[in-house]
């Protein structure tokens, strides 16, 4: 080594370290306090960003190629998920329709003007007795709510039946259509008093033992007469369908359909005595 110096003239390692550290610190302070280095930064960025973009290219390409192969499975999975979702939505929509109907019926019940001397109480049908002749439903109001046996049960359109048994938190309602059930009625057109009986069929009532020349016409509306003190006056009960002339018996028979929408809705109104509530309130 011809040009190797005889004595080391380079600075010591620690000295150089101190110098570099000082320079770095100065740079940091300058950079954080002043904007002097922005131009250097932007210049270097102009050089480095293209390099970075170039380096990223193969990876972008690889991920795109991967997408190409995964897209089929992805679409299949998504399709399956969408089908499931649409089913869920359809079932929800069904629930929505049912709720809408129920809401409309409840509104009608709310608007119903109840007969004088009665206090209406809304009750929900919780069970239907499956006996085809003895048509009964169980509602969720009982003696704890002030329900008494014998009280009439109506809905938005007309008479539904009568409370026949009362339990603590539920009661049994015999529907108008059950075989044992009778109701004193009046023909709205001419005031003729009749007795409507259930037949055990869901949509048929009849008036038995009529004179063959009785003045009842199809389309007549029968309302409660209020004579028996069980049913208050003027609740629509049935619409006359036809008059059957006497055949083997000496009496004519009128077939009618109930006006109350029996078995259609989930809520009914129990018409309690107005003074019963007051009495129970006084007892408390």
């Amino acid at each position, binding site marked *: *080594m011809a040009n*190797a*110096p005889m*004595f*080391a003239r*380079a600075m*010591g*390692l*620690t000295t*150089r*370290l101190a110098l*570099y*550290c000082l*320079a*770095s*610190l*100065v*740079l*940091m302070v*300058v*950079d*954080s306090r002043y904007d002097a*280095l922005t131009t*250097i*930064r932007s210049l*270097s*960025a102009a050089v*480095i960003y293209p*390099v*970075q973009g170039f*380096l*990223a290219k193969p*990876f972008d390409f690889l991920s795109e190629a991967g997408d190409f192969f995964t897209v089929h499975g992805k679409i299949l999975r998504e399709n399956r998920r969408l089908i499931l979702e649409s089913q869920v939505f359809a079932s929800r929509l069904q629930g929505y329709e049912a709720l809408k109907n129920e809401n409309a019926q409840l509104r009608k019940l709310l608007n119903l003007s109840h007969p004088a001397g009665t206090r209406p109480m809304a009750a929900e049908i919780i069970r239907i007795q499956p006996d085809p002749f003895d048509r009964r439903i169980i509602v969720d109001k009982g003696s704890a709510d002030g329900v008494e046996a014998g009280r009439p049960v109506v809905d938005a359109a007309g008479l539904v039946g009568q409370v026949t048994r009362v339990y603590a938190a539920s009661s049994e309602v015999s529907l108008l259509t059950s075989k044992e059930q009778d109701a004193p009625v009046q023909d709205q057109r001419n005031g003729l008093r009749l007795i409507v009986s259930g037949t055990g069929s869901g949509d048929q009532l009849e008036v038995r033992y009529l004179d063959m020349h009785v003045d009842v016409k199809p389309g007549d509306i029968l309302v409660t007469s209020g004579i028996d003190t069980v049913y208050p006056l003027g609740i629509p009960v049935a619409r006359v369908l036809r008059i059957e002339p006497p055949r083997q018996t000496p009496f004519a028979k009128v077939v009618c359909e109930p006006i109350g929408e029996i078995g259609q809705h989930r809520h009914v109104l129990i018409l309690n005595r107005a003074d019963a509530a007051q009495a129970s309130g006084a007892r408390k």
Partner: protein
Amino acid sequence: MNADKPLVPQGPELLDPVSARLVAVTLVLAYLANLLPWPDSLRWLVPDFTLMLLLYWCIHAPHRANLGLAMLLGLLADVTLGGLMGQHALTYTLAAYAALGLRRRLENFHLSGRALQLLPIFFGQQLLNLLLGLAFHLPDVDWRFLVAGVAAGLFWIPVAHLLDGLTGWTNKMHIEPADNRTSARSLLKSQSGARGPK
């Protein structure tokens, strides 16, 4: 005489000096590896390849890699990674200084032993980097980035293995000074023994 920068290459470098081209190429490759589009969710795990290579060359070719190179690479990293100007320059320089100080000692260790002793340097560099950022400009620091320091220490093992293969470096090539010392001592003894009778 300055022992840290000898006038002529010593030890293994004397036998087979590392070419400047190899140092430059590996450093550029490491720098490009830092520039790769790492996913942001894994960014905290990615070691600083430039620093790893810099420390490797500081240990194995101190006549090629020195504090000036460390400062230069640090400034480059500052420009690239978007930190404060001088932040990486400072930490790289300090790390290189520590590595140069450890150099003699490391030559006697195997690969994993060297990695184990370098790990505190990598970790400290990362910690200092975060602290500097916190002190100067960052509102908050993601401490997960400390893991990158440990990752660098672990990743240094395969990298150093590869580079050892490239340069042909083994710690067997290190010339043990023990022989010289014993021979000197025996020489001294023989001299004193010769003088004794007089």
